[in-house]
């Protein structure tokens, strides 16, 4: 396992119940894990705990076997690339400059980026198909391009694990599919992938394992077919759903209208 959260408990100050209550989640090389669950179930808290932004009250978060809290920030960023949920652009850079920020964990405070850095940036730009817009300022990009630029920035870190928090929120079908295809390709190439998403159907088709969170606890974890059952999802989301099988064997979730019955 590259990233491994073991029965972690996270309490926000002043909150009644813990945001995460004994949740476990791990991801290894060439594996894509999707974390799903209703709003407020602790998905983003899990990302923050996994990436050392939040201290855990109990349990342990390990990166390559070592507690995350012991990692130096820059060293951590050389192993794990994170694409956080939101990012507001204040002083827009160009696409290439933005992706170069992914090299900062490998640069000293004064040294200028070298040929290796430029090569890594270019590879990341091409990989995410944003090399054509390399010179554009980031505030002129479409939503889909901007998300791919942020993934490229994380790839420029040359990480062994990639964590994405709702990467396709507010993207249309094409950009959503393109991004999941990209993530899958990266995982096939050996990266450990952890993606937080609201898209149960995409999680079912792209992920090797699905972790279903509810109220800070892991309700189920395993293959999409084992986790995404109609009964369980209906209980967790509080809305009746039916689950059918798509021709590739992945379960597909259809929310039901009142008084409607599944197939």
């Amino acid at each position, binding site marked *: 396992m590259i990233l491994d959260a073991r029965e972690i408990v996270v309490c926000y100050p002043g909150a009644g119940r813990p945001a995460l209550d004994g949740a476990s989640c791990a991801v290894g090389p060439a594996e894509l894990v999707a974390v799903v669950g209703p709003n407020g179930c602790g998905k983003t808290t899990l990302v923050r705990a996994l990436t050392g*932004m939040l201290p855990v009250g109990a349990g342990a978060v390990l990166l390559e076997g070592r507690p995350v809290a012991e990692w130096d920030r820059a060293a951590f960023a050389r192993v794990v690339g*994170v694409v956080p949920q939101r990012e507001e652009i*204040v*002083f827009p850079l160009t696409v290439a400059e933005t992706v170069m920020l992914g090299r900062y964990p490998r640069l000293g*405070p004064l040294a200028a980026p070298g040929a290796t850095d430029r090569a890594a940036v270019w590879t990341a730009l091409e990989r995410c198909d944003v090399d054509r817009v390399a010179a554009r300022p980031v505030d002129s990009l479409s939503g889909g391009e901007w998300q791919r630029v942020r993934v490229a920035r994380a790839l420029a870190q040359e990480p062994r694990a990639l964590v994405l928090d709702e990467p396709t929120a507010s993207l249309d079908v094409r950009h959503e599919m393109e991004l999941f295809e990209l993530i899958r390709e990266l995982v096939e190439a050996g990266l450990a992938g952890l993606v937080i998403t609201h898209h149960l159907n995409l999680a079912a088709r792209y992920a090797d394992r699905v972790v279903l969170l509810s109220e800070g606890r892991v309700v189920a974890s395993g293959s999409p077919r084992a986790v995404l059952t109609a009964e369980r999802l209906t209980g967790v989301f509080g809305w009746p759903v039916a689950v059918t099988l798509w021709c590739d064997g992945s379960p597909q979730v259809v929310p039901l209208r009142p008084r409607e019955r599944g197939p």
Partner: protein
Amino acid sequence: MRGGWTALLLAVVAASLAAGLAAGAVPLPLSEVWAALRDPDASAAVVVRSLRAPRVLLAFLVGGSLAVSGAALQALIRNPLAEPFLLGLSSGAGLGAVAALALGVGGSWGVPVAAFCGAVAAVALVYRLSLVAGRRLDPRVLLLAGVVVGSFAGALMSAILVLSPATGIRNAFLWLLGGFGGASWQGVSIFAAYAAAPLAIVGLHARALDLIVLGEEPAHHLGAPVERTRRLVYLSTALLTAASVATCGIIGFVGLVVPHAVRTVSRPLHRTLLPAVFLVGGAFMVLADVVARTVVRPLELPVGVVTALVGVPVFALLLRRTLT
């Protein structure tokens, strides 16, 4: 920054320095300025070497330092409206300095320290006031808090001035008006001594500032020590502002106008932004001082009046753009 811009920048700096040395109560042609710089016995040597040169150099260093403070604060707060004057740092520093002058403690080396204490107190208070709903920093509240803290410090300054003995008042008033009229080589060395370390600290955090501009979370994920950087850079800007206020009074808007101008022509990566902002800030202040001492000759305007005349329209422009 590309070669062309660098050359232009250096040309602007050289032109501002030349203008600063040539202009004054008695305007000197550049040939005489040059002669005076090369030959200590030239006719204009006294004026140029012991009056104008320290004045120009001090204005340059103070302008550069205030501009760098503005750029650094803008990165920390992630808002182009941040500036030492608007955030109340200058007034806090002013209060500290007035208190020291009124009490007659400190001397030329101690006043900056008192100003630093005032600036740190002001920045802490402003920051505290603008943390709404726990941890989110709202730029509008931040600016309001800056104005409120600035006014409060201003009121306390007035109170101290009224209550202190006559000699203290005179010293404090002269200084409070702001300007480089009293510049001396000693003033230049004191300022340089206080400004060197914080400028270096801000410069060494250029990369971390690039990341902090993205927001706390992305900065953290890209390996920046967010909290440590914030604390060190805040203290550095407080020290730069304090040293400026202690040597030449309260001069506003330099930290707003200059980074804004530089960002319009150059990309905002701090490794190039900060040096450019320092040079342009220095040149801007020298030219503002030239205007201040020539426009109503033989009287002198406080240089803060000139920077405000340029700065307020820029502020209005940025305010519209930021809040819409």
